[in-house]
């Protein structure tokens, strides 16, 4: 490109509310040649990879290209049986008996191995899930390692976590995790369970199982006693078999509210302990005295991070009426500068939608928003021909009763509503069956404290959004679930106190 092209190309309006591009960033692709994705993955049971009893394997895709990455074993009820049996044996014979500092040693080892293999894990996370490499590289994988490090530290200090109580593990935990943060969710589930002395049967989501199976290889390499962690793959039926298995003492599930309710029904009347981390429809509330440009960044991060596949996504934006005009204008300009495309490109901001089914669900709700009369704004970015894609979108003129203001879309779609007073903001923000998270944007400290105390949400972020740390508990109010993950609170579901 020569300098003369600078003025021959169309010059954009400031803020770039147009699709013309002056400065084309050359593709900057993360290398994939150092990564080995196996053509077939079996079930990880009793410390070994074993063929499924079902003799069935299903394909797993790269959602950005629709190419098949690998074949994944489908665990049936007999496989679940085997896995739970191994977990029970490992619990009775090894894991509950070894000294807590020994347990810590193994968990630290897993953490270090994740760090060592972070590059490969990030690339596979992006290939299998569609998320931008900058997110898997800078957020998913480092946070996963941080969770293991954090809970490894607790393993031999449980009596300080729960002073003056006797602390015992629960037993065998059946854990089911979603597809939006595959490795990170595995870390959230495994680390506290192992630190407290439980053994685990973990089922990753059917669309994104590969990094969990790479974690199984790491667990092998860390020489964790066989059976302490078992990782079985499959769809809903596998999960249902695990949840209702008689010898599972504790069920932990992260996923949709609908499935969460079914799990709760399935285990009603049993001794099983349960934690659920379910859906959300989080309010992100912008007051007129907010730092506007930073609030706009927070709104963007809140809803377009990981293509909006985030249970705590700030999907309902409440803007005080006096600043609606600048906020909407800045949002329109800003979504235009989001770089949508190849998730392996280091400059990509928004990657591929995780699956065809999810893409269809997003499209259906967006169509519904248009039908209900809301005004739609969409980035005019070019979308690749193959793969599953959805342009960053937001709606204005959304009313509280709209489906797009009520239902979790789990995609890059934001609903904008307005309010006049803090009381109205609170009332509308809390007027939802969900209560996972919320955001407040204001320069006024006292207002932050007041809002945080009255918002019915497990996490309230002030002048920031989507911040996670292993030391900070995370979980929901109302139909967003119960139980906490992360921090000291995250240990509680995995111990029996007496």
């Amino acid at each position, binding site marked *: 490109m020569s*300098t003369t092209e*600078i003025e021959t*190309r169309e*010059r954009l309006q400031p803020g770039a509310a147009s699709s013309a591009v002056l*400065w084309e*960033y050359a593709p900057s692709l993360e290398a994939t040649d150092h990564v080995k994705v196996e053509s077939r993955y079996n079930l990880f049971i009793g410390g070994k990879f074993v063929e499924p009893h079902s003799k069935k394997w299903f394909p797993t895709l790269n959602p950005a290209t629709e190419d098949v990455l690998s074949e994944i074993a489908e665990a049936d009820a007999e496989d679940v049986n085997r896995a739970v049996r191994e977990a029970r044996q490992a619990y009775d014979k090894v894991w509950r008996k070894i000294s807590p500092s020994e347990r810590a040693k193994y968990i630290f080892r897993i953490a270090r191995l994740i760090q060592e293999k972070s590059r490969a894990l990030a690339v596979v996370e992006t290939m299998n899930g569609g998320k931008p490499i900058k997110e898997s590289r800078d957020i998913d994988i480092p946070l996963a390692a941080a969770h293991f490090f954090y809970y490894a530290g607790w393993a031999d200090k449980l009596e300080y976590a729960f002073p003056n109580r006797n602390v015992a593990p629960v037993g065998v935990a059946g854990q089911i995790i979603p597809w939006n943060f595959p490795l990170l969710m595995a870390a959230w589930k495994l680390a506290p369970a192992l630190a407290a002395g439980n053994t685990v049967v973990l089922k990753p989501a059917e669309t994104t199982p590969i990094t969990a199976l790479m974690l199984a290889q790491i667990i092998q390499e860390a020489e964790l006693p066989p059976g302490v962690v078992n990782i079985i793959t499959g769809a809903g039926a596998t999960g249902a078999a695990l949840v209702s298995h008689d010898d599972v003492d504790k069920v932990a599930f992260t996923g949709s509210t609908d499935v969460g309710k079914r799990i709760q029904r399935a285990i009603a009347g049993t001794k099983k302990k349960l934690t659920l981390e379910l859906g959300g429809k989080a309010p992100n509330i912008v007051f007129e005295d907010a730092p506007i440009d930073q609030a706009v*960044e927070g709104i963007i991060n809140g809803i377009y991070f990981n293509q909006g596949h985030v249970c705590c996504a700030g999907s309902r934006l409440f803007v005080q009426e006096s600043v609606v005009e*600048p906020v909407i204008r800045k949002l329109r300009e800003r979504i235009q500068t989001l770089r949508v495309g190849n998730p392996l490109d280091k*400059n990509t901001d928004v990657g591929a939608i995780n699956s065809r089914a999810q893409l269809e669900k997003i499209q259906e709700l967006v169509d519904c928003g248009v039908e209900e009369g809301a005004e739609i704004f969409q980035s005019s970015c070019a979308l690749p021909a193959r793969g599953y894609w959805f342009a960053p979108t937001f709606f204005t003129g959304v009313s509280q009763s709209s489906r797009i203001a009520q239902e979790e879309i789990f995609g890059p779609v934001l609903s904008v509503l307005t309010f006049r007073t803090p009381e109205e903001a609170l009332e509308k923000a809390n007027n939802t069956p969900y209560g996972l998270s919320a955001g407040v944007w204001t320069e006024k400290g006292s207002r932050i404290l007041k809002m945080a105390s009255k918002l019915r949400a497990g996490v309230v972020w002030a002048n920031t959004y989507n911040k996670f740390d292993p030391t900070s508990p995370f979980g929901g109010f109302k139909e967003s679930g119960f139980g906490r993950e992360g921090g000291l609170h995250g240990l509680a579901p995995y111990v029996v106190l007496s």
Partner: protein
Amino acid sequence: MSESLTSHPQSSYAPALYRRSLAEALEMAHGVDAVAAEERAASLAKRSLKKDSKVWGLKLAVSMIDLTTLEGRDTRGKVVALCNKAIRPDPSDPAVPHVAAVCVYPTMVPFVKTALKGTNINVAAVATGFPSGQTFTSIKVQETRETVAAGADEIDMVIDRGAFLSGNYQKVFEEIAEVKEACGPAHLKVILETGELANYDQIRRASLIAMYAGADFIKTSTGKVGVNATLPITLVMLEAIRDFYHVTGKKIGMKPAGGISNAKLALAYLVLLYETLGSEWMNPDMFRLGASTLLNDILMQLKKERTGAYQSADYFTMD
């Protein structure tokens, strides 16, 4: 080099047209969240520029440089050498554009004017009691007039930080307006000396005051204090420019200066500019980089892109 990249900026001297009140400036000066602003700047600095896009950016960066020497020991010989570098940064590669301007102290202006005769490179001079600005307004105005008369196309003034920090925004505003008037046809860059303003709220406020008082450019620093240009400071100023443009329709230029010493950092500034203000600002009429050692590092990178190998520093002239 094309005409539009190198022509002298058109004078926008028409105070009555756009100079507005201090009250309007202060009304727009809402707070800035430091953590979030720094995060945004850091995320943009992570953009990965390769191949053509890198070369394009580096050449653009060269064309935006205000090649600067501001020392008590500057002489005619020194500034003439700098001018020659400005005209032909890399004699071995004619594809490398010339820089935007040469920036000197007022007494050096006549030498620069002569040396740059026949080129499209502007003569920029610091005035108004640079760098501290601790002198009388009448002297600042007089200095500006004489510097313009001596041939400066652009004046880089410093704001009265003492007045600003003590809350006397009126004085800051009026002084900028007076200096702008004294500039006549010359372009006015207003240096906020952000390193002395303590926080982003103040930087945004000072940016708005300068723009409402008539600045053509706002500039971060003199290069004479501990903290000079940083990416987040520049981001906050660019966002103020964007808001000012929206309200008034007038496009103000931006000049980060001081501490921008390598090619990678220069590219990060361009990314920040591109993704905040868009392509309308991606030219030397709207964006400058105040730097002295930056040029050679960019030349080194360009040569590496051309030849595939880094050359010894001995192959790049020290001026």
